[in-house]
């Protein structure tokens, strides 16, 4: 006839085998099991079953290459996440534009006024107009700062997060130029020229796919020191931002920036 105490202990044997009982509880049950053949046999049976399940469950090796495939999926997700990440400084673009417009308007209002003799339309003169440069002086060409912010803006035009009109300042400064004749070997054969879209706020829109190529007038560009030194050294500067590979190189008076979404693609430096 089954002992009531024995029966009440049976449900705890699994937890005992798994080492999941409180220490005092485990000691008490073990002491009882030691003097009870039936419970002892059940404990051994559970231990064997646990081992059997473990051996069966770990018998088969995972498929070949699974680890690499899973790791690639995680890395791909990481890249996608970076590409989706909003830029914290984006709000500053319209704000800066508003400030510039306000300052321009204020300067215009506070400047000297002359009455047009033929009508009542006021003409605002910029302060420089009051003191024109000597006829022999030629205005220096504007220098465009191709800094981190400008590159990121270009990256986001490439991705499609920003409208190509965001490149207007590059174009209007005269730094961003069209370049019909690309040097052979600049782009890899797989990409091909057909997949390249030159970056200007006209040519980028609409752009469905392909790499972005921005060609700058090197004389009108200021580069960050790191890019400068890379161009002087290896001749090519590479970086990755928001899942987009950035490659910068120069040839003659032209500076080339290639943006490519797939970092795996290769670009041969000139």
């Amino acid at each position, binding site marked *: 006839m089954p002992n009531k105490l024995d029966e009440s202990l049976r*449900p705890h*044997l*699994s*937890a005992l085998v*798994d080492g*999941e009982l409180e220490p005092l509880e485990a000691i008490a049950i073990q002491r009882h099991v030691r003097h009870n053949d039936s419970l002892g*046999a*059940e404990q*051994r*049976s*559970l231990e*064997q*079953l*646990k*081992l*059997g*399940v*473990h*051996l*069966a*469950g*770990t*018998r*088969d090796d*995972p*498929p070949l290459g*699974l*680890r690499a*495939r*899973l*790791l690639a*999926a*995680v*890395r791909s*997700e*990481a890249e996608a*996440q*970076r590409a989706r990440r909003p830029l914290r400084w984006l709000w500053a673009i319209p704000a800066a534009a508003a400030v510039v417009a306000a300052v321009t308007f204020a300067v215009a209002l506070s400047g000297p006024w002359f009455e047009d003799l033929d009508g009542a339309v006021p003409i605002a003169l910029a302060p420089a107009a009051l003191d024109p440069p000597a006829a022999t002086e030629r205005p220096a060409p504007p220098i465009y700062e191709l800094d*981190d912010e400008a590159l990121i803006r270009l990256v986001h035009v490439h991705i499609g997060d920003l409208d190509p009109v965001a490149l207007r300042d590059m174009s209007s400064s005269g730094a961003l130029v069209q370049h019909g004749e690309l040097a052979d070997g600049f782009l890899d054969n797989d990409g091909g020229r057909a997949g390249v879209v030159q970056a200007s706020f006209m040519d980028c829109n609409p752009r469905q796919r392909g790499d972005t190529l921005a060609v700058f007038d090197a004389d009108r560009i200021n580069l*960050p020191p*790191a*890019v400068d030194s890379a161009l002087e050294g290896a001749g090519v500067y590479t*970086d*990755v*931002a928001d899942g987009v590979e950035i490659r910068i190189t120069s040839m003659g008076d032209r500076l080339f920036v290639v943006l490519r979404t797939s970092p795996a693609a290769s670009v041969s430096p000139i």
Partner: protein
Amino acid sequence: MAWFRKRRRRDREAEAAFVEHVFSHWEGLFRYAVRLSGDEHTAEDLVQESLTKAYRAFDRCREDTNYRAWIFTILRNTFLSRARRTGRELPLEDPVSVADEGAANLEHALVTPDDGWRHGFEDEVLAALGELAETQRTAVVLCDVEGLTYDEISHVLGCPIGTVRSRIHHARRRLRATLAGYANARGYANAEQAG
């Protein structure tokens, strides 16, 4: 460019932390997924989807997160969601307990050097696991195969530790009953008893 470098370094550190804390369980996840889904292709899909989901949420984890329990929970939830979407029936409720026929001694099978009988026995164990309710199977597989604690399993199953204990107890009774039948049918249990 310093800004790029800083951000890139932060991204690399996050990836390294994910690989160390979460991705490192990929083999266990795959084994568990096979036991849940029943085939390797679906299991691979499940693990991939779970790791991707986990990566998306990884930066929101607290420092004291138990990543092992967390990723196994994601995997199970992904499996259950898929099963609901595809209309696959799941025996989610624990079945009525079976009578324990636990007299069979399984030692004969387990201590014998690798031979045809043992391989057959392991197949039998896996088949018996597949017949368990999903909650019981999860509890036993995570405990015996993957070595999770009851606390971690309770996290995965979303139930108290006492329920985990009960599920493991009932699952093992059922497994023993099934496997005892297998051993008896081949005369091993009888031979053991006779010996």
